[in-house]
C-alpha cells in the first residue's frame, strides 16, 4: 500500500512517514504543491494525505486534479482550518476524510485504515485478530464466532485499539477519538479508564487472551501476543 504525504512542514511530514512506515505502508512525501503534482502524475498511490495550506498552492487544487485524472484511491485532508465551511469545501472537492491539526498519529492511522476498508475493499472486509473478528461497517464483534455485546463507545474503543495494534495509545488520543473536539481531555481520563476496564472485563469473560495491556504512565496497548 502506497501513501503520498503532501505536507509543507518537514518535521510533521517526517513524523507521519515514520509512524506509517512502521505500520508497513510505503510512504513518499511532497513538500510543495509542484512536487505533489509531479508525483501524482508520475506514480500511482493508494492513499494521499493533503495539507490545504501549501507555500505555492492550495491543497484543494491537488484534489481537483486527482479527481480529473480519475484517481481511484482515498484522499484525506489534514488541515489546521477547522470551520464547517472549510470542511464542506474540502469534502465536496472529492476528499474522503478531513482531519484537523493537531491530530494524534494513532487517529490518522485509524482514519487511513478505515478509508482503506471503505475505498479499497468497498467496506466488505473484516478485521481478524486471533479469536476476535470485527465487522467495522456492521459494528459487530465476534469472539470465536459468537456475537459480542458491546456499547457503541466500547466498540469504537476496541476498533481503535485493534487498528493501532502493537502501538501505545495515550489516554488523550483515546479520549479525543471517542468524544471528539471541544472536550477538556482532563475531564475524560476517568471515563477512558472506565471504558477500558469494562472492555477488558467483557473480553476476559468471553475468554479472550490478555491482549489489552496497560502501559504504565502512558496509556494502553493492544498486542497480538
Amino acid at each position, binding site marked *: 500500500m502506497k501513501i503520498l504525504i503532501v505536507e509543507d512542514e518537514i518535521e510533521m511530514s517526517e513524523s507521519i512517514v515514520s509512524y506509517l512506515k512502521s505500520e508497513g505502508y510505503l510512504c513518499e512525501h511532497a513538500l510543495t504543491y509542484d512536487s505533489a503534482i509531479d508525483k501524482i502524475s508520475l506514480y500511482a498511490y493508494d492513499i494521499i494525505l493533503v495539507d490545504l495550506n501549501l507555500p505555492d498552492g492550495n491543497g484543494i487544487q491537488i484534489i481537483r486534479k486527482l479527481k480529473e485524472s480519475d484517481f481511484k484511491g482515498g484522499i484525506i485532508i489534514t488541515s489546521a482550518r477547522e470551520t464547517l465551511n472549510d470542511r464542506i469545501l474540502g469534502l465536496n472537492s472529492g476528499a474522503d476524510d478531513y482531519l484537523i491539526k493537531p491530530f494524534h498519529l494513532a487517529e490518522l492511522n485509524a482514519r487511513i485504515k478505515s478509508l482503506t476498508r471503505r475505498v479499497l475493499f468497498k467496506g466488505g472486509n473484516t478485521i481478524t485478530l486471533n479469536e476476535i473478528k470485527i465487522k467495522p461497517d456492521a459494528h459487530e464483534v465476534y469472539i470465536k464466532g459468537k456475537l459480542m455485546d458491546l456499547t457503541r463507545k466500547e466498540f469504537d474503543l476496541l476498533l481503535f485499539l485493534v487498528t493501532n495494534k502493537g502501538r501505545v495509545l495515550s489516554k488523550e488520543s483515546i479520549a479525543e477519538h471517542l468524544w471528539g473536539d*471541544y472536550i477538556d481531555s482532563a475531564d475524560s481520563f476517568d471515563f477512558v479508564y472506565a*471504558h477500558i476496564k469494562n472492555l477488558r472485563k467483557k473480553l476476559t469473560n468471553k475468554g479472550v487472551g490478555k491482549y489489552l495491556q496497560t502501559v504504565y504512565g502512558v496509556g494502553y496497548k493492544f498486542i497480538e501476543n
Partner: protein
Amino acid sequence: MKLLTKTTLFFLTIALFVLFVGGIVFYFSFRYIMNHEVKRELVTEMHQVILHPPQSNIIGIDSVVFNLPVHYQILPVKDIHNPTLDFRDTLLFDNIMGRYQPYRMLSYETNLDGKPVRISISKSLLISDELIEYVAFVILLLSLILLLFIIAFNNYFFSRIWGKFFKTIDVIKDYNISDKKEITFPESEITEFNLLNQVFEKMHGRIKQDYQNLKEFIENISHEIQNPLAIIKSKVDLLQQNENIDKSQAGLIQSIQSSAIRLSNLNKSLILLSKIDNKQFSEREEFDIVENINFHLNNFEDIIKSKNISVQKIYKNPLVVWADSNLISIMLLNLLKNCIYHNFSSGTVEVMTESNTLIIKNSGKKLDINPEDLFKRFTKSSNKPDSLGLGLAIVKKICDYYNFSIQYTCQDNFHIITIIFK
C-alpha cells in the same frame, strides 16, 4: 444639567439682572426728568406771575378749590425773611376726588403792591406719577415678553444648532467596533461640529485599523500555533512507541503530551471565541435543540451509565432555533458535558423544554467560585486545575451573540441553567 437648561438659565439670569438694574435706573432717571420738568414749569409759572402780577385783592384766595392743574396761593407775611426759592413736595386736598393728592410746590416771598406776601405755586404730580406707573407697567410687560422669547428662541435654536451634534452622538452610541458597516457623521453648517466629526472619523479610522491588526494578529498566531503543536503532538506519539523508555521518562512524555493538548484545546477555544466576536457565524438554519440534546446525551451514554446518573428528559414542546448549527451544538455540548462531569456519582440530570425556554438542572457539589464569575473566561474550580475554564465563557458568548438570555441559579446541591431563546 442639560446644556439647554444651563444656557436658558444663564440667559434668564443675565436678562433679569439687566432688566432689574435697567428698571431701577430708568425709574429714577424718569422721575428725575419728570421732577425737573415740573420744576421748570413751576419756574415758568413764577415768571408769568412776576410779569403779570395779580391784584392785591386776591391775597388769601386759595385756588385749589377750582381744581386747576396749577394752583396758586398768596398769603400775607410780616416780613420777607427768605428771598430764595423753595421747592418742596406736598399734599393738597382735592375737592373733586375728595382726597389729598401729591403736588410739587414752589414758594417764594415777595412784595405785591408793596405788601410782603408769600406766593406758593403748586402743580399736581398726579399726571407724572401716573405716567411713571404706566411706563413701568409697559417695561414690565416688555420684560416678560422678552423673557418668554428668550426661552422660546433658545429652545428653537438649541434644537436647530445642536441637532447635528446629537446625531453625531447617536452615531457614536450605536457604534460597534466589530460591525463591518462604515459610519458616517451628519454634515453640519457649524464649523466646530464638522471639526468634531472629522476628529471622530479619524479616531474611528485609527481604532478600526488597530482592531483589524489585532484581529489578524490573533488569527495568525492562533493558526500558526497549531502547526508546531501538531509537530509536538506527533513527535510525542512517536516517542511513546519506544519500547526502551522507563517509567520516569514515560511520565515526562505524558506530561508533555497533556500540556500540548491543553495548549491546543485552549487555542481552539480562543479561536472560537474570537470568531464569535468577529461575527464569523452568519449562516443560519433551523436547528432542533431537542434532537441535538438527545444526540449529545447519546454520545455520553456510557459515561452516564458508569457514573450511574439518572437523566430525566421533559420535553413539553419542540424547541427550534434559527441559528448556526455548529455554534448551538457546541453550546449544548458544553452545558451537557458540565452537568455530567461535575455531577455526583448516582446524581441526577434534568433537561426540560417549555415554550422557548431550556432548563438544565443537575446535582453537583456547591460552587467554590463566585457564581457571578461563572461565565467569565478562565474561571475554574480549584479542584480542576487542568480544566481550561472556557466552556461556559463560550456558552455565554454564544448566548450573547444570538441574544438568548442565560441564567445560573443554585439551589442546595442543584445547579440550574436557564436559557430563554428569544
